[in-house]
């Protein structure tokens, strides 16, 4: 069992799957020679060559549409789009093509592709390089959506995503790549659709995913000292959503707060909060709250950027307000 970085865990999963299955290949911009801006594909070109590690021209619409075609033709492409902000360019290939082919073809066609990308603010990259756009993919039937928060989850979920026969959006976070965690040496997969209780607690459930999981854990620690017992439920995959785990935890605590970095308006949090109200209204001791990103484009200035994203203090305050 080794302590490795999030990006190393992803890199390891790519190496292992490409060794195991010759139909798995990766493509994207500057992923080969350069190993990707976040080094997730580092070393792949050397071992697997340019036939399976493809540096493509700068054209996200065709890059992503081509992945769908390659998947239909019997391979398992893994596409890297450098920033989730850029997935707006191949949106047709995802929403109208990859997500719909299995359905429209009456089950004849399958699109086992993975689109790896990353989102989130925190580095002063401004409005076009800091968004959290998972709500778009969450809303579109036919796409799976994975957002791991730890090296352990990143490895196990990427393994499963690559082997899954449905198109999967694998959404990483730029502030997680350098975070470290234990990853077992033997191969393992984490089934898509299983949330994980990152910390047990009895008074309030924090429902979260991706980078915000770390902030929730920090908040939970502070709150312990105040004598408030917080459960931190990391969804890990948003689609399939582990509704059972959510309802179980809320059934226990009676109070829930959904925490995510994406803009609050129309974010995933509203859907989850509404689902809890519909399915477990009588279990609730109070309203399900949302602690989310502000409804604004992300500014360049760091002071302004900071106030757009939920802080540990915001989470602590929210918890205290419901307990």
């Amino acid at each position, binding site marked *: 069992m080794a302590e490795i970085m999030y990006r190393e865990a992803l890199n390891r999963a790519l190496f292992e799957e490409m060794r195991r299955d010759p139909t798995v290949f990766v493509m994207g911009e500057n992923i080969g020679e350069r190993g990707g801006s976040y080094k997730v594909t580092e070393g792949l070109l050397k071992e697997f060559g340019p036939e399976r590690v493809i540096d493509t021209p700068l054209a996200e619409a065709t890059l992503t549409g081509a992945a769908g*075609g390659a998947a*239909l*033709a*019997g391979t398992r492409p893994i596409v890297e789009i450098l920033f989730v902000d850029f997935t707006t360019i191949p949106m047709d290939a995802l929403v109208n093509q990859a997500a719909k082919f299995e359905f429209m073809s*009456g089950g004849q066609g399958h699109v086992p592709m993975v689109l790896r990308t990353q989102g989130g603010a925190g580095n002063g990259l401004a409005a076009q390089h800091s968004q959290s756009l998972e709500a778009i993919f969450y809303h579109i039937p036919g796409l799976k959506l994975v957002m791991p928060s730890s090296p352990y989850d990143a490895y196990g979920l990427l393994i499963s995503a690559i082997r899954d026969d449905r198109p999967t959006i694998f959404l990483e976070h730029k502030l997680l790549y350098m975070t470290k965690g234990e990853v077992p040496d033997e191969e393992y997969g984490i089934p898509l659709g299983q949330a994980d209780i990152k910390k047990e607690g009895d008074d309030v459930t924090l429902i979260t995913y991706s980078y915000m999981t770390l902030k929730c854990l920090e908040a939970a620690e502070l709150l312990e000292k105040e004598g408030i017992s917080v459960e931190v439920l990391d969804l890990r995959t948003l689609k399939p959503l582990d509704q059972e785990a959510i309802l179980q935890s809320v059934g226990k605590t009676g109070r829930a707060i959904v925490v995510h970095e994406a803009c609050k308006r129309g974010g995933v949090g509203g859907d989850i909060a509404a689902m809890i109200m519909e399915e477990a209204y009588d279990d609730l001791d109070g309203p399900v709250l949302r602690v989310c990103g502000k409804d604004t484009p992300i500014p360049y200035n760091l002071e302004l950027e900071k106030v757009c994203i939920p802080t540990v203090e915001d989470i602590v305050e929210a918890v205290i307000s419901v307990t």
Partner: protein
Amino acid sequence: MSKKTPTQKAVKGKGPSKSISEKLLLQMYRNVYATRQFELKCMDLYRQGFIRGYLHPYLGEEAIAAGSCAALSPEDYIVSTHRGHGHCISKGADLKLMVAEILGRATGYCKGRGGSMHIFSKETNNLGANGIVGAGIPIATGAAMGIKVRKGKEVVLVFFSDGAANQGVFPESMNFAATFDLPVIFMLENNHYAVSTPVECSFGNCDLACKGEAYGMPGICIDGNDAMAVYETTKRAADRARNGEGPTLIEAKTYRHGGHHVNDPGLYMDQDVLAEWKARDPLEVLAGKVKSKKKRKNIEDRVESELKDAIEFAKQSPQPSVDEFLAGIPNF
């Protein structure tokens, strides 16, 4: 900058009409004839209320699908469009399952979930019609990438028309294909219209074949109403692709025999030009090359009974089960 109009464009690259096996000739005739009859029957069925949604007839363009698919092997892939019945038929699809799909029945290729604009036929490696104009082009380019990755020998033939040629994914895909020498053939069916917009009004340069060279591949302009010419040009392109020499762009000039879809009278079309093209009806052009009247008659009779059975089969077929559909939703 003066805009060359398509008609000024010479018909290059056709080359000397090589002798072609009678088997292929008859196959092409069957497909042109079958497509013609298929479309006419579908239009009737539409008017009788059996068909919903959009129906885009391939009337007048049949030779392009018939000629090009004749140059492919069964394992080769095609990627089709919203005007896709002809592609589907020429690649060898079962008329029964096609009509059933267009009527939205459980027995159709897509279990009635796709309809005319989304027919997909796995057993003939037809990766589907598409309702998004241009979307098939990167899909085909990717299929060719996949074939290369798994060291397959198939080639991919993608059909699209002049409107789709305005979409950025067309040049992007040509560039991908040329950069990686992909086994794909870009078949640009220039029928001179995108709905009511004529080519002359939507291109700064109406010589569409020339875009091939700009993106690093041969661009060949041919007479799309001559199935033989289409066959020969596609054959050369397919050999090239299979030998790892890369993609080819073929601009096949043709003309719709009617409006954009079954309900469009197409009054905006130039009636004189339409008459000229109809005078060179791809069915008659090809008929002229099948010497034996008897063999033609045979084919026509077989097609008609096949089509009659297909329509009967479709009409008798059950509607898809709502329960089965609902049960499947959690997968999406």
